[in-house]
């Protein structure tokens, strides 16, 4: 039993002149739910397709469950469940037929397991796949990824197209997989999707890792925006030397600050003047991620 489920070492993939991944190094621990976040085109699917040996790295290495994705592909895929960002199968077949076939490629999955998952997600196995909506098609993808109880689930934007109720069922399935000691690696471009279940989160932008931490620690990194209105205009320079405080805007007698860490120093400095108004906003997590996405936040 390895303690590292996925290990990337300077993994690089270039497509002609375009960079897909630029020297990405990180580890996913066995048994954790790992959120892989980034805007569209950041390299999330590229990473996942490298892990599955669908594409090959330009340089650097990846190890998955202790195996080489390339030379041990067949042995590795036996232990994986994969859901692609856009799940595609031949639309003429029925959902049940498709799932039975895919299960047989893995040596067979008990029919009871398939029907159990389908019932849970309210998927009609009799329906032809081309007649299914985007969300229902995604359910077929989820069933095929989970049905053989793989050690490692690699899910690319698993919740896309799912309604909120099914999203919740999906999150329950992820939690159960984790409780069974299995590892889940899931990508998303929306933080709130992974926030509820992820132990740790990595954020990538333009093929590079910009943050990797627990959700709680990432949250602790967020800053406070404080807006103070004074009775009379106050010079911004008065606050220039305060630790963790930067003046963002001066507008008449109203000053806007960005506070990283404790607001104590700012409050004491402001107390020397008559304060007529005060407003403080924590940056919410989506904003924080937006800042990482656009490169505005300091890289950790």
């Amino acid at each position, binding site marked *: 039993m390895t303690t590292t489920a996925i290990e990337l070492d300077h993994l690089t993939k270039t497509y002609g002149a375009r960079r897909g991944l630029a020297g990405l190094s990180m580890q996913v621990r066995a048994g954790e739910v790992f959120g892989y976040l980034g805007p569209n085109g950041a390299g999330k699917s590229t990473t996942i397709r490298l892990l599955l040996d*669908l594409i090959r790295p330009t340089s650097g290495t990846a190890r998955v469950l202790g195996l080489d994705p390339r030379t041990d592909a067949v042995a590795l895929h036996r232990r994986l469940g994969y859901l692609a960002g856009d799940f595609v199968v031949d639309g003429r077949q029925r959902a*049940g037929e498709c799932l039975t*076939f895919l299960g047989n490629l893995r040596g067979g999955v008990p029919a*009871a397991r398939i*029907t159990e998952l389908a019932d849970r997600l309210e998927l009609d196995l009799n329906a032809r796949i081309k007649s299914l909506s985007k969300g229902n098609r995604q359910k077929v993808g989820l069933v095929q990824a989970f049905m053989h109880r793989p050690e490692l689930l690699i899910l690319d934007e698993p919740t896309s197209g799912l309604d909120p109720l099914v999203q919740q069922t999906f999150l329950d399935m992820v939690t159960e997989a984790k409780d069974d000691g299995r590892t889940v690696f899931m990508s998303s471009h929306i933080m709130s999707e992974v926030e509820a279940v992820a132990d740790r989160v990595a954020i990538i932008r333009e093929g590079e890792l910009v943050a990797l931490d627990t959700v709680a620690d990432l949250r602790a990194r967020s800053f406070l925006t404080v807006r103070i209105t004074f009775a009379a205009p106050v010079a911004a320079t008065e606050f220039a030397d305060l630790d963790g405080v930067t003046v963002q805007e001066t507008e008449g007698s109203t000053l806007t600050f960005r506070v990283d860490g404790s607001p104590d120093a700012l409050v004491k400095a402001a107390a020397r003047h008559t304060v007529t108004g005060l407003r403080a906003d924590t940056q919410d997590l989506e904003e924080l991620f937006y800042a990482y996405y656009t490169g505005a936040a300091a890289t950790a």
Partner: protein
Amino acid sequence: MTTTTVPGVSGAARACTGSIFAKTLYDNRRVFTAWALATGVLAMMYGAFYPQTSKDSLSSVPKAMEGFGLNDSSSAAGYLQGPVFGLLIPLLATFYGAATGARMISADEESGYLDLLLAHPLGRTRLLLHRFAALATGAVVIAAAVLAGMLLIRSSAKLDTISIGHFTAQATHLALLTILFGALATGLGAATGKGRPAVFGVTAGIGVAGYALYGFAPQIGADWLGHLTPYHYYIAGEPLKNGFRLADIAVLIAITAALITAGAWRLNHRDLAR
């Protein structure tokens, strides 16, 4: 462990979910049947004209077309080698190979389905061979349908100067020609990752150009050019008159094997397109 069955899986469908090969055959059952019926019926219809055409033999075929084998309708074998086994059937075989081969790898790679299949415990070469075996099975069914059609009209259309063995030989050569063009399209898709229309177009283009080359080569006094096309090994040995031509069969099989091997090698060494 359980007797539950998965809804949406009929008996036939269940029997065909055991491998990529069986599943591909099952998914293509209607297409393959249509090809076989259409080709078989066409061959039968044209073959049945023999009693009419044999009277005004050698009639109006231009000298320039002699290379296509359209100039000899004095015997049953000569006639069938012309419009039927010399023109209509091999061109249909070429198009079956191009169209089906373009769907074996290219179409699924284009749609993204190949990503899903190859994320399963299944090597790329194995996937390619299963798909190609399904295509080859379809080709054998087509050739068998043509053979059945010929045997059906053999006495009524006065084709009984050709033995059943020689008909079988011609059908075997036909199956191998069909499989060869299937291998070309499958191999092209596997090697390049190009989409289905491109693979079909290039394969069909090579087929038609090769056929024209084979037909016109004798007119320009360069018979050897015809030897560069698979059509030479398919019919120049006149299997309807001479039976199985083992050397020709070996060449057709060797080219097919080379195409599939090259395709598999490239497929294993490249990124899947997306």
